[in-house]
């Protein structure tokens, strides 16, 4: 117990006294909290500029263009004479789509014929494509339905019957969670978990590789295996709890404070979120100890983990569905605390899941804690066996 407390105190002291560690665990976490969310703070992509090529130049074609411009997703930025001119503007990125209204658009409509229009939408940026396609599809359907109803009514059909004939089985999509489809609401809860993992992982990796990471002895010079084992366990436990203590405030800020600050809806209870964060932090700390033993050089830890965040994010199966990843990749992803933690924490915080709903992730994280802590204990044990005897006094 004495050993455990010594290690615990020593590790906390080192986190604050070693500048690189403090920078990564505390300062970097603070900077990322402000810096990372910037691109997404507007939540939605609005008024994607498109051009209209109106070859009809009638009241109805202008009405169609006006309705498209009135949607929040798309803005008619230009009216251009022909498609090749408009295509050049797309290549120039001044517009991202072309709405072509062919000649005789109005005449065909009035004659009861099918009167097609075409949208050429830039699909090199999927979100823009989706916005343009969604807005123009909705407008063409609404306008088309109005014409169809008007025609039927003109033929003497009752308006309610006409409405039923034009839309007999309305389709109502109901987005559960993040109903506005906000981009910040989508990406930030997951990204925050990943930032927590990255900063703590590098921080622990640095702690284990910077000077001062030497073995702490209880003072006795006995080298019995049982003593060594006991000391190793106490050391790893002391370190992990030190990380948990230091990280508690940061985790609470990232999982509760920041979402509140950025206006991200939270359905889950604070207690459940924090309960879930415990095994996550311990698992990352355990992995950090293994990382430190693997790399042994603080610069190597910093450099190797600098660019790894992006692959880790996609590995989590959040931005890209895990169902379609190759099996070995999915297996690998399960070894990272972030994969289970993003699933679990997003479910708890954003979807309002209870601990029993996410018990698979919760237990999985505890399993990772056990695995990484065991490896760390074994490494510590080997190190102690090889270490020279402490000089008494």
């Amino acid at each position, binding site marked *: 117990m004495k050993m455990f407390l010594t290690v615990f105190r020593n590790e906390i002291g080192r986190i604050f006294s070693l500048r690189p560690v403090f920078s990564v665990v505390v300062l970097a976490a603070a900077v990322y909290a402000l810096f990372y969310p910037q691109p997404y703070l507007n939540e939605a992509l609005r008024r994607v500029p498109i051009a209209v090529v109106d070859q009809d130049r009638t009241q109805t074609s202008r009405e169609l263009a006006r309705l498209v411009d009135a949607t929040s997703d798309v803005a008619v930025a230009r009216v251009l004479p022909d498609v090749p001119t408009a295509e050049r503007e797309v290549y120039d990125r001044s517009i991202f789509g072309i709405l072509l209204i062919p000649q005789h658009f109005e005449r065909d409509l009035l004659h009861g014929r*099918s009167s097609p229009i075409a949208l050429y939408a830039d699909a*090199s940026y999927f979100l823009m494509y989706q916005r343009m396609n969604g807005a123009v599809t909705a407008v063409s359907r609404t306008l088309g339905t109005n014409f169809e109803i008007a025609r039927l009514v003109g033929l003497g059909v009752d308006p309610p019957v006409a409405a039923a004939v034009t839309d007999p089985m309305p389709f109502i999509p109901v987005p559960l969670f993040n109903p506005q489809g906000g981009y910040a609401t989508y990406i930030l809860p997951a990204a925050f978990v990943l930032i927590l993992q990255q900063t703590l992982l590098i921080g622990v990796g640095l702690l284990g590789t910077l000077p001062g990471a030497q073995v702490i002895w209880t003072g006795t010079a006995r080298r019995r295996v049982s003593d060594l084992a006991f000391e190793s366990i106490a050391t790893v436990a002391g370190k992990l709890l030190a990380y948990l203590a230091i990280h508690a405030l940061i985790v609470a800020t990232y999982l509760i404070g920041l979402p509140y600050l950025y206006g991200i809806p939270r359905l889950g209870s604070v207690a459940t979120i924090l309960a879930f964060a415990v095994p996550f932090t311990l698992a990352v700390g355990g992995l950090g100890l293994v990382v430190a033993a693997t790399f042994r050089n603080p610069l190597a830890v910093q450099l190797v983990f600098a660019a790894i965040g992006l692959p880790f994010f996609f*590995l989590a199966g959040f931005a890209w569905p895990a169902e379609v990843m190759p099996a070995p990749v999915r297996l690998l992803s399960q070894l990272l605390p972030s994969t289970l933690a993003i699933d679990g924490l997003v479910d708890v915080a954003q979807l309002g899941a209870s601990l029993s709903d996410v018990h698979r992730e919760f237990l999985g994280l505890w399993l990772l804690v056990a695995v990484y802590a065991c490896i760390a204990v074994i490494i510590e044990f080997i190190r102690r066996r090889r270490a020279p005897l402490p000089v008494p006094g």
Partner: protein
Amino acid sequence: MQRRDRQQPGFPLVFWRELAWLRRRPLLLMLTVVVPLGLMLLLTAILSAGIATRLPIAVLDLDGSELSRSVIRAVDATPDTATVLHVAELSEGRHLIVARKIRGLLMLPRNLERDVFAGRRPEVVLFYNTQTFTVGNLVLRGVNSAIPTVAAGIRISLRTAEGQPVEEAQAAITPIPLQTHALFNSTLNYVHFLLAALLPAVLQTVVVTTMAYAVGIDVETRHRFAILRRLGGGLLPAMFGKMLPYTILFLSMLGIADFVLFKYLELPLRGDPAVLVIAGIVFVLACQFIGALLALLLRPVAAAVSIATLLTAPAFGFMGIGFPRLGMNAFAYGYGELLPGTWYLIARIDQTIRGTPLDLSWKPVLVLTGLVAVLISLTAIRVRIMRRSVPERAA
């Protein structure tokens, strides 16, 4: 190389010394070869499917009629979605969505068929999860394309029942059909959209941080800095001799990634390969000099590497692939403007999937070239200032 001691100081001497370092220092070799290749391979494996198909959804069929079964069949037949199971009540479906066993729940109300043909307009509801953005949108797209198809069949049959000819009914039900053409990436393939952008983004972080380290260990002390300058026989040759081995290595990594993309993942190359290569060279140079400049400005090396990581690790979001720059606030837009990756990705998208005409292709390349020129000037100024602070005897 063995007779380095007899070589004249100059660019080749520094160049060969750097290559010898790369051979002797496993960390440097790991950072320039193993890490970028490993990370790019991992990303490629993750996204290799390119298109997510047959996402599982569940059905709550309260009607059990011929019509409800045809709706289910239609939803199952779209490439996006697959109806994998039936649930008995809404709460069960919600539970499965939260547990990510299913990605959506389609609810077909009681008496659907009877009400449809009686003109009561019963609603078909899809519950889906927008918290997982991409997947939620794909599920919506799938169901949203299937239901109108079934509805169109009903509308035609309602009209033909009234004695309208089939062709006339078909034309009448969609007065304004919309033909959407997805320009440049017609299959909406995530490999060509996302992976092709992620690989240079990872490389950007690797290049900037590695250069901060590689230059950092040479300028950390005044003594080493002086040695480097003397070996180079001047500042400029020393600087370029130091940088060039890495330029070659990182360009090779980019080349390997592109080879895999073009050869195996069928990324189209519709533009000018020369422009793509030039853009790649200036991109790598710009990243290199950002790292070098950080190493010259910040000490110790660890601090330079930390700041390099801080600046580039979150950069992907700022480069406007997932969430376009058009929708960003002024700060994010401005920061994106300063990243070499933003401009390289524009050039890359132009020359690969877009096939932008040559006269419209130069802007990102010119911006990158300007960025490199500015960075080289800043580096030269910084090195000159440092030389003044080096004592004469060391030089």
